[in-house]
């Protein structure tokens, strides 16, 4: 088997999930210059809600095809996360809109801790496993393997990203979002209800996060109340890599980070003479984050330097 190709495939799969989550960070940052640290937890809640629904359905209707069950989980998780993000913005961030930048940042960390603890109370401390009800066929691709699930993850993510791109570039709401990101005052002068656009930004980001949460838990076969922390940090790194505030950048950064991580994990053993194993794969995201912040703080596609906070 070709390790390079295999790790490239694995990286793209993981990377498309990172990209979905990174988009939520970057859209909110683009409009509010706020790093919404609670976004990783919204992703986790998406996974947990979906798993609860999946568990319930499997009990209530054991004959339902697995794909339908998971789909139902996703369809409940999406509005749940949207509602959650709407409430977070309205209750935690909006009152601080005019406060110094540190206040909403600390609040975001607070919200993220609250969500983690709430999830722990609701779903417990243990890992929740994702039932093996999805098709698991494996296919050959360029001398490597790819599973049905991997194909579905990449395809679905790309589809969602294309949809988001159309929304942002072609629709009235998308234009209002881009205008608001450039100047809230002038956007208001055009008749844009800025509060509503900001809500919409959070809610759209949360919908993507919900999908990402389900995908990542299906991929690893489990979910956990703490999973949002690392996933969120990696997705944030991906957003910074692409240029925070830049939507295309988040997509590129996510995919790239996934690939860097997978290749790094694949070769780290060889590179260090067996001293470090593939379980060190998590360090690559932070290595990349630090490298970007030092060498090119504006990221690959970013114009503005994220100088503050």
């Amino acid at each position, binding site marked *: 088997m070709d390790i390079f190709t295999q790790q490239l495939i694995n990286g793209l799969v993981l990377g498309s999930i990172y990209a979905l989550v990174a988009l939520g960070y970057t859209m909110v940052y683009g409009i509010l210059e706020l790093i919404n640290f609670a976004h990783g937890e919204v992703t986790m809640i998406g996974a947990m809600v979906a798993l609860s629904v999946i568990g319930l359905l499997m009990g209530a209707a054991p004959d339902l095809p697995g794909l339908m069950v998971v789909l139902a989980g996703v369809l409940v998780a999406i509005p749940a996360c949207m509602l959650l993000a709407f409430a977070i913005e309205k209750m935690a961030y909006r009152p601080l809109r005019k406060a110094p930048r540190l206040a909403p940042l600390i609040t975001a960390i607070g919200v993220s801790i609250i969500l983690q603890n709430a999830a722990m109370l609701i779903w417990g401390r243990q890992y929740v496993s994702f039932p093996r009800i999805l098709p698991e066929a494996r296919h050959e691709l360029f001398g490597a393997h790819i599973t049905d699930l991997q194909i579905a993850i990449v395809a679905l993510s790309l589809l969602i990203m294309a949809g988001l791109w159309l929304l942002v570039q072609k629709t009235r709401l998308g234009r*209002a979002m*881009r205008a608001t990101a450039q100047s809230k005052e002038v*956007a208001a002068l055009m*008749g*844009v*209800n800025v509060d509503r656009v900001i809500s919409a930004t959070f809610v759209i980001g949360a919908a993507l996060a919900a999908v990402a949460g389900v995908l990542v838990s299906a991929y690893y076969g489990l979910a956990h109340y703490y999973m949002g922390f690392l996933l969120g940090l990696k997705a944030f790194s991906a957003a910074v890599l692409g240029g925070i505030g830049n939507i295309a950048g988040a997509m590129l950064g996510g995919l790239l980070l996934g690939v860097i991580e997978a290749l790094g994990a694949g070769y780290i053993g060889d590179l260090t003479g067996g001293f470090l194993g593939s379980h060190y794969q998590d360090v690559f995201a932070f290595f990349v984050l630090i490298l970007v912040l030092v060498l090119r703080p504006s990221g690959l596609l970013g114009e503005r330097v994220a100088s503050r906070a």
Partner: protein
Amino acid sequence: MSLLEVRQLKVAYGGIKAVRGVDLTVAEGELVCLIGANGAGKSSVLKGLVGLVQHGGEVRFAGERLTGRPTHAIAASGVSLVPEGRGIFARLTVAENLDMGAFVRRDRTAVNIDRQRVYELFPRLAERRGQMAGTLSGGEQQMLAIGRALMSGPRMLLLDEPSMGLAPLMVQKIYETITRVAGEGVTILLVEQNANLALHVSQRAYVMESGEVTLHGASAELMSNPQIRAAYLGE
């Protein structure tokens, strides 16, 4: 009855009283200017009118109270402010900037007609419609800002120093446009430091100093007022 009626408008930034009780009216179809030195409080008056800053006093437009309404609602009621420094969306195309001007309008046909009118008024904008607005020259950006305001089909235009930072030829071009738009029946409140220009195109004028209106009257009369000539027309 006046289209715009401002009573005892007050604007403060923390302890700084920028506007200290300004009375001002603009009748339907009028072009009125508000002149004064830098820091007199002119921009603060306009920002107060459209709710961009909190203010005391009362603002009525077409008989309705604007005071306390959010900016986006005021914009939707037919008042359009072209802000100081133009405020174009640099990373939106020229065409997208114009579309933003028509954001609250649902009547596609009317919007298309207005877009054509703006492109006729400023052929330069038509040539550059697909270009990012940030790449335009200062004069072109001012054209875009005015064109964008016209896209809302406004009953009243508020212009904040449209001549600022522009070459003389461009200033002339912008002022021709302002006169033409006024001629088409749009009511205009024009804020300027360049008193000479503003007094020439307007019917009435208000003079502001340190947050207060110190003089007002017909522009032609103010132009021959020795005090004004000394203070604002450089004589």
